[in-house]
């Protein structure tokens, strides 16, 4: 009886551990371009966590890790729009349920509830996470001045791609 109990305990705790998946090399990109201006940036050092037991899902990215083609655009992004010194990170915390990621998205210090289509596939012991969703830029308190309003999309298309590995 006691032996069984111990075995069950160990099994329980190990499963609790091994259900967690993590990566620090997730690819997160956004496209806020318009016919007038090509505005695209990608970060290859976003992090993502997923707990298969509870369905909890989290994604985080450092604003300064976004790479733009043009240095000046990157500077303006950090300085004038994302205000990366004040708000260094953007993140999602929530759950993955029924093909959707449901939870809170925080950008520019503003948190909003979202539910967006998301895909998690298992492959060779790793999980592939894919999500693509629009983000209304101004609803996160990021002001777009009238002079450049035609050049920047109202909604940025965000794409997340990650390969999560099981935590040891």
């Amino acid at each position: 009886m006691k032996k069984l109990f111990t075995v069950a305990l160990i099994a329980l705790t190990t499963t609790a551990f091994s259900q967690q998946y993590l990566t620090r090399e997730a690819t997160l990109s956004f496209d806020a371009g318009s016919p007038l201006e090509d505005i695209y940036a990608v970060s290859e050092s976003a992090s993502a966590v997923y707990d298969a037991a509870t369905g909890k899902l989290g994604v985080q990215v450092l604003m300064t890790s976004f790479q733009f083609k043009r240095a000046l655009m990157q500077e303006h992004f950090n300085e004038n729009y994302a205000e990366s010194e004040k708000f260094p990170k953007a993140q999602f915390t929530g759950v993955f349920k029924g093909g959707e990621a449901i939870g809170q998205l925080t950008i520019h210090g503003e948190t909003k509830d979202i539910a967006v289509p998301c895909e998690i596939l298992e492959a060779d012991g790793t999980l592939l996470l894919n999500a693509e969703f629009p983000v209304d830029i101004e609803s996160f308190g990021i002001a777009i001045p009238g002079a450049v309003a035609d050049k920047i999309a109202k909604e940025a298309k965000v794409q997340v791609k990650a390969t999560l590995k099981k935590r040891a």
Partner: protein
Amino acid sequence: MTFKQSFFLGAFALLTLNAAGQEDDLFALMDIPETTEFTYATFKGTRVINAQSNETPGEGVLQYVISHRFGSFSNDYLYNFFGLDNAQIRMQLDYGITDRLNVGVGRSSFNKVADAFIKYRLLRQTTGAKDFPFGLTLYSSTNYRGARYTDGIDHFISDRLSFHHQAIFARKFDESLSLIVAPSIVHWNLVPGPNDPNSTFHLQLGGRYKLTNRLALTGEYNYGSNYEYSDGQRFYAPFAIGVDLETGGHVFQFHISNTNAMSDPLWMATNPYNPLDGSLFLGFNISRVFTIQD
């Protein structure tokens, strides 16, 4: 309950608690550790006003700067159509060879000076995992006076040359306040008399204070080691205050200063205008960048 039983119960409770703790910490796992970041946008432009800032255009960026200094308030201001009739102009074209190295040429109407410069960001301020408190940019320009001499002497080409070298220490204190301190040397190949120094030392102080994301106040002052020459010329320390307005690829800098020359040695070392006489000039620098190479 035997000792063993209670031990197991306790262990079980502890372990499940631990597991639960793990659970809540799931989101802590994704916290990205601090990285070292280069401080960006210490200044909006490559100049504070007349003084150089620590900034250079990025790699593959061609920058065109057009600057005007309008006529002085003390010089028949209305007759000269608010100083427009006697405006000085400077055009500058420069290119970012790398993110740190910048070269360019310029032409200023005052004394018909053509110049070439090189600017290099030796050290960059960083924050995050590794803090480095300031940036250091080196700047050097060679200036050729194109204006004819009226002293009747046949001058060598070398007489027409003057130089400016400086080390620009810059720090962005927070997102609003940035300051520069730039010890500089101005060297003239030709000075009025044998007892006049060919080289003068200067200390530039400059800063900007951001009011909004796209609007900033700027100011600068330039102290020089010698403003009196043997031929009776008396010069004054130049200063300027202004605003920076940034819109996408442009930076507009509007300002008021007591100098209307724009080539480095002229505005720094031989500025004849005393602000107390009302010799103040409105002016602007407008820069436009073109990304030549992505």
